[in-house]
C-alpha cells in the first residue's frame, strides 16, 4: 500500500467535461512527485482535491492507509504553498510561520523554537519580524514554504510555487526546494507547467493532459521513452512523426523512404508514431544521407534550431552554435542520427 493513493478520481463542474477524469496514482513516502501539464489539464484540480479544497465527484483519496475523503482541509495535516504565496499581510513573518502551530495549541516556547528552526532552514532568520509585503518575491515564497513545513505535514503540496518569479530566482528556488526536501524528507507534490522545472526537481513526473494522466515515470525515462505523442511533444523539444513499420525492423517515412532506426523486437507492423529529438540529429558528411531543407533558423546563443523539412516531413534540428555558423535559409543539408535515437511511441524500449 502506497503512502498517498488516488483511486479513480473524477471531478466535473456540472457539465459533461471532466476537469479530472479517472486519475489513479500511488505516491510513496518521502517521494518528490511533479504534476506536469498545460493549464486546464487537471493538475491543479487534482492537487486541490488532495488538499481538500475541492470535493471529488467520485473516487477516493487515502493517506497512510486511511481514507481522507470526509476529512476537512484543516484536519488533513497537509501543507500547501500557493503560487501567490498567500502570506497573511497582517502578521509578521514569524507569526505567519507560527500560525499552524498556534492553531494546534503548541506551547509558546516550542513555537518560538520551531519557527526559528524553520526560518533558519529557509535562510530568513533575520527577517522574523518583517512584514511579508516588505520581502521580495523569492523571500515571500520561502516564508510560505517554512509556514507549510513547520507543523511537519504528512504531505507538502506546491501549486506552481515559482510561477511568479523571474528565471534566475526560479532556478535558485528549485535548488532550494530540493535541498529542503532532502533535509526534511517530506512527501512532496509539485505542480508546474514548466517541463524543465519538472525534469530537474522530481523523483517522478506525472504528465497530465485533458484531465487524464498520460504517463508516470522518472524524468529521464519520461524523456527517453514517452508513451504517448502528447508526452513526446510536451516533455522536451521533439519531432513526432508518422511512420510505417514495414516489418523486419524497417521504418519508412512517407515521401522519404526508409530511415535509420533500431526497433524493439516487440514493435508491431503497420502505421506508428516515432519520436526523434532535435538534438540527436547531426550534420552528415556523406552525400547519400537524407536531405534536409532549411526553412528557418532560430538562434538560442548556445545552440541553433533549424526548422525545415526532410522531404515533405516537417522537422526540427538542434545544432551546437559552432556547427551552425554558416547556415542560410534555403540551404540543403545532409543529416543523420544514431538508429537508437528513434523512439517508437508506446513501446517499452
Amino acid at each position, binding site marked *: 500500500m502506497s503512502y498517498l493513493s488516488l483511486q479513480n478520481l473524477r471531478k466535473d463542474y456540472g457539465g459533461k467535461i471532466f476537469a479530472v477524469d479517472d486519475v489513479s496514482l500511488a505516491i510513496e513516502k518521502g517521494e518528490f512527485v511533479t504534476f506536469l501539464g498545460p493549464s486546464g489539464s487537471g493538475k491543479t484540480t487534482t492537487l486541490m482535491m488532495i488538499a481538500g479544497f475541492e470535493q471529488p465527484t467520485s473516487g477516493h483519496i487515502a493517506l497512510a492507509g486511511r481514507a481522507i475523503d470526509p476529512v*476537512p*482541509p484543516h484536519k488533513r495535516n497537509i501543507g*500547501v504553498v500557493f503560487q501567490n504565496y498567500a502570506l*497573511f499581510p*497582517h502578521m509578521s513573518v514569524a507569526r505567519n510561520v507560527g*500560525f499552524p502551530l498556534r492553531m494546534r495549541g503548541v506551547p509558546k516556547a516550542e513555537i518560538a523554537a520551531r519557527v526559528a528552526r524553520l526560518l533558519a532552514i529557509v535562510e530568513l532568520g533575520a527577517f522574523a519580524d518583517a512584514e511579508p509585503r516588505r520581502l521580495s518575491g523569492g523571500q515571500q515564497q520561502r516564508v510560505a514554504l517554512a*509556514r507549510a513545513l513547520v507543523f511537519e505535514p504528512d504531505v507538502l503540496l506546491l501549486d506552481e510555487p515559482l510561477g511568479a518569479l523571474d528565471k534566475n530566482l526560479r532556478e535558485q528556488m528549485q535548488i532550494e526546494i530540493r535541498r529542503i526536501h532532502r533535509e526534511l524528507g517530506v512527501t512532496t507534490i509539485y505542480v508546474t507547467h514548466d517541463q524543465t522545472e519538472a525534469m530537474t526537481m522530481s523523483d517522478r513526473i506525472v504528465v497530465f493532459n485533458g484531465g487524464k494522466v498520460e504517463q508516470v515515470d522518472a524524468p529521464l525515462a519520461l524523456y527517453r521513452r514517452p508513451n504517448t505523442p502528447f508526452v513526446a511533444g510536451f516533455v522536451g523539444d521533439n519531432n513526432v512523426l508518422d511512420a510505417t513499420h514495414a516489418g523486419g525492423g524497417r521504418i519508412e517515412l512517407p515521401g522519404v523512404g526508409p530511415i535509420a532506426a533500431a526497433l524493439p523486437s516487440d514493435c508491431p507492423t503497420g502505421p506508428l508514431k516515432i519520436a526523434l529529438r532535435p538534438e540527436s540529429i547531426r550534420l552528415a558528411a556523406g552525400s547519400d544521407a537524407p536531405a534536409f531543407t532549411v526553412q528557418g533558423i532560430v538562434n538560442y546563443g548556445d545552440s541553433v534550431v533549424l526548422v525545415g523539412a526532410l522531404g515533405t516531413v516537417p522537422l526540427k534540428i538542434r545544432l551546437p552554435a559552432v556547427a551552425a555558423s554558416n547556415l542560410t535559409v534555403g540551404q540543403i543539408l545532409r543529416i543523420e542520427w544514431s538508429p537508437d535515437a528513434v523512439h517508437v511511441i508506446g513501446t517499452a524500449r
Partner: protein
Amino acid sequence: MRPTMILLGIAVAVFVALPIFIVLPMSFSTSPSLAFPPPGYWLGHYAHFFRDPTWTGPLINSFIVAAGTTLLTMLLVTPAAFTMTRHDFRGKSAINVLLLTPVIVPHIVIAVGYFTYFAKLGLLQTYLGVILAHTCLTSPLAFLTVSAGLKGLDRNYERAAQSLGAPPIVAFFVVTLPVLRAAFLVSALLAFVHSFDETTVALFISGRDVATLPKRMFDAIRLQADPVLSVAATLLFGVVLAVFAASFLRKFFKAGVSR
C-alpha cells in the same frame, strides 16, 4: 473652463456646508429663540440640553439603536455577502435584487409598513423594533460594501489558513476579517451613521419611550422654536463627524507608523 469649475465647486461646498455654519453658532447663542445671527455667545443651551432628560434620553437611545443596528447589520450582511460572492445557485439574481429593495422603496413606505406590522407584534416603541427597522435600511449598503471587499479577496488566504489547521470559522476571524478590516469597518460605520441620523422610520415607530435624537428634534420644532434644537443638531453632526474622523485618523496613524 477651470476657474468656472473651481467657482462651481466652491458654490456647491458652501451650499452644502451652510446649514452647519448657521446651526453651529446658533447653538452657542444667547438668544432665547432660534435667531441668526446670534446676539451673543454662551453655553447656556448646552447646559440646558444635558440637564434635560427629555433630551439626554433620546441621545442615549440613538446610541443604543445605532449600536444595535450596526451589530445586527454586520451579523446578517457578512454571511449573506459570503454566500452571494462565493456560491452559484438558482434564484441568486432574484435574491440579489431582494437584498437591495430597501434602497429602492421610499423610506416613508417602509415606515408605514413597519408601523402597522410592528403594532401587531407589539414592537412599536421598543429598541428591538427600531433596531430591526433600521437594520433593514442599513443592510443594502453594508452588504454591497462587504461584498465588494470579498470579491477582491484572494481565496487562497482562507485556503492557506485552513490547510494550516484553522477551522473555517477560525480562519474567518483570524485571517479574513483582519485582511478585510477596511471593508468591514466602512460597512459598520455607514450602518452606524445611517441609523444614528435616520428620521423617517424613527418618527413612526420609536414613539416616546425609545425616541431617537432626530425624532425628539422633530417633536421640538413642532411645538416651539427651542434653541436647544440647535444644540441637538450640532451634537448629531458632531457624532457623525467624529465617527468618520476616527476611521480616517486611524488609517492616517497606521500609515504613519508602518512607513
